[in-house]
């Protein structure tokens, strides 16, 4: 009894301290940037003890839904909101919502072929063909042609994709839609497409588990997941014709190319960019901030955080395997901050 009373008392004290001091800001959304967001919100809280940002990584779709419903102060997404979603937000609240890119990530093809240890090269046609179910053997000329000297087996390809709706899938299908007309008309881009072939694994760990289990399989995971779990992955041929291995430099390069043509609302897809050294399957990830806040303290805190995130915050990105924002994008975002009222 005493112990329970003690715990209750401690909880009360903590709660009352929190309510007395901290301004609590709630956000929800994308799971992919969750590691860096947690780090940022934690670091920012250390510097500004009175501001506490609580982030739930419930998924991009749920983040958009919750910020539209007004149950959280801000959202986060790996894919930009659609025109339809922007309209729904505008209609509900009477004002708009802004996109702020935070960091960049990439998606890489990973595979398990017994006897093959070399990093495989994938052309866009090969990837689209495999995921459309038209290329069914590993020794198909579309794959073998880009991998001279690798002894590819005549085995059936087992395709593995995410079964849970995911920003990773959104980027992957966005890329395939850009490089293959057939993919664009038959499947399209989205977080949960109707896959022509393959097995679904739940989460990145489900996909990699399935790939480890099944010989001659191929799937896709986030770069950060592949790096932190030491999963080998292949290179992808970009629009200039070079095979690029995804790393921080090649992802940043993709962003730098996009920065030059960045639209004012930051809703941009950077898959299949023009740069010669750019990795073609990369994306920004965005914070979704409403244009108006009725609570001015909250508004100022969020603006303060965004300012810090664009400056000091960026320095945390690379140690967590995310690519930093290009300078041009940072400058542009700082101007856009004035739109938050």
């Amino acid at each position: 009894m005493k112990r329970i009373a003690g715990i209750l008392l401690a909880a009360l004290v903590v709660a009352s301290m929190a309510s007395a001091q901290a301004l609590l800001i709630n956000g929800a959304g994308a799971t992919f940037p969750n590691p860096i967001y947690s780090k940022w919100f934690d670091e920012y809280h250390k510097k500004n003890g009175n501001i506490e940002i609580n982030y739930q990584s419930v998924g991009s779709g749920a983040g958009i839904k919750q910020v539209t419903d007004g149950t959280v102060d801000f959202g986060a997404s790996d894919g930009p909101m659609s025109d339809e979603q922007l309209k729904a937000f505008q209609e509900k609240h009477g004002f708009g919502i802004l996109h702020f890119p935070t960091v960049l990530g990439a998606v890489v093809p990973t595979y398990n072929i017994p006897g093959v240890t070399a990093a495989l090269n994938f052309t866009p046609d090969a990837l689209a063909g495999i995921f459309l179910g038209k290329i069914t053997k590993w020794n198909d000329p579309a794959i073998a042609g880009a991998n001279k000297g690798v002894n590819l087996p005549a085995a059936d390809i087992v395709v593995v994709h995410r079964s849970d709706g995911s920003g990773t899938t959104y980027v992957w299908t966005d890329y395939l839609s850009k490089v293959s007309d057939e993919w664009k008309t038959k499947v399209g881009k989205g977080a949960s497409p109707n896959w022509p072939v393959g097995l679904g694994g739940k989460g990145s760990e489900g996909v990699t588990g399935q790939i480890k289990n099944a010989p001659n399989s191929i799937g896709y995971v986030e770069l950060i997941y592949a790096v932190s779990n030491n999963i080998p992955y292949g290179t992808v041929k970009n629009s200039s014709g070079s095979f690029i291995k995804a790393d921080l430099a090649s992802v940043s390069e993709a962003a730098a190319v996009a920065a030059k043509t960045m639209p004012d609302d930051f809703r941009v897809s950077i898959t299949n960019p023009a740069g010669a050294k750019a990795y073609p399957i990369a994306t920004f990830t965005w914070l979704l901030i409403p244009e108006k806040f009725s609570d001015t303290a909250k508004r100022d805190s969020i603006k303060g955080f965004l300012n810090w995130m664009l400056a000091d915050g960026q320095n945390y990105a690379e140690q967590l395997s995310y690519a930093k924002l290009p300078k041009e994008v940072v400058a542009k975002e700082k101007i856009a901050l004035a739109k938050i009222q």
Partner: protein
Amino acid sequence: MAGSRSFLSRLREGDEIARLITFLFAISVVLVTLLLIFELWQGSALARHKFGLQFFLTRVWDPIAEQFGALPFIYGTFITATVSLVIAVPLGIGAAIFLAELAPVRLSDTLEFFIDLLAAVPSVIYGLLGVFIVVPLMRVYVQPGLKNTLGFLPLFTGPAYGVGFLTAGIVLAIMVIPYIISVSREVLMSVPRDQREAALSLGSTRWESTWKVVVPFARTGIMGSIFLALARALGETMAVTMVIGNTPTISASLLSPGYSIAAVIANEFTEATGNLHTEALIELGLVLFLLTFLLNGVARLLIVITAQRGGGTAHA
């Protein structure tokens, strides 16, 4: 006298209060069920109007094109639950008979402890067991073995991925067996002693008294344990999604990957951005509810029929 009467009336008043309170508790279950149906019905209005009966009859599930057909998920849920019961019912009831009738009491109680422990294991643990042990075993040994020996049947064709209907059914069977054993054992043990003694005194063997008297006597309770298992198998989400392959296919082959209703809801709900997608998923919830309702009804009907056929001897 007056004092005792007021005591009695107070007691009666107390009875009334107790009756009212327990009645409210009982009715709350009904209310929650009705509320659940209402919410699912309300929340799926858009999808119900758009697709109507087509929702049950078409097999394309394409959130991008906003085409939603539930048939592959209904099929997957039905097949995996069936496979699991086909495996779990004989095993579970057999084990329960041994524990209740034949095993020494100490052994029975010890085993019961472990069975209760198994029933309390969270489903994600069974899912991990499935991913790391059952799936590789299925892919390397069981599925090729089935294809080589029974491959002429349409049930065992297609590539051996390891995951699929059969694997999900087996993992589900492992999960529901403890329920069947635990409940059936209790029911068998509560069969009155004189039933057994009467059978034995009429000259039947130990097994005859068990199989012809005790088991029929306990049939309703055993069926109850199977309902419980069925409900768990139909609604299981985590363990199924980890081993079923998550591909909305309808295939006669048990080796083929599939999908279940609960699994697709869990997988897609958080990232469902369009209203229609969300509502289609809610309608799937409604379908799962109906399916559970329907299968429970059929099972109950089965009991009534069997009870009428053999009930005369069992319940006399």
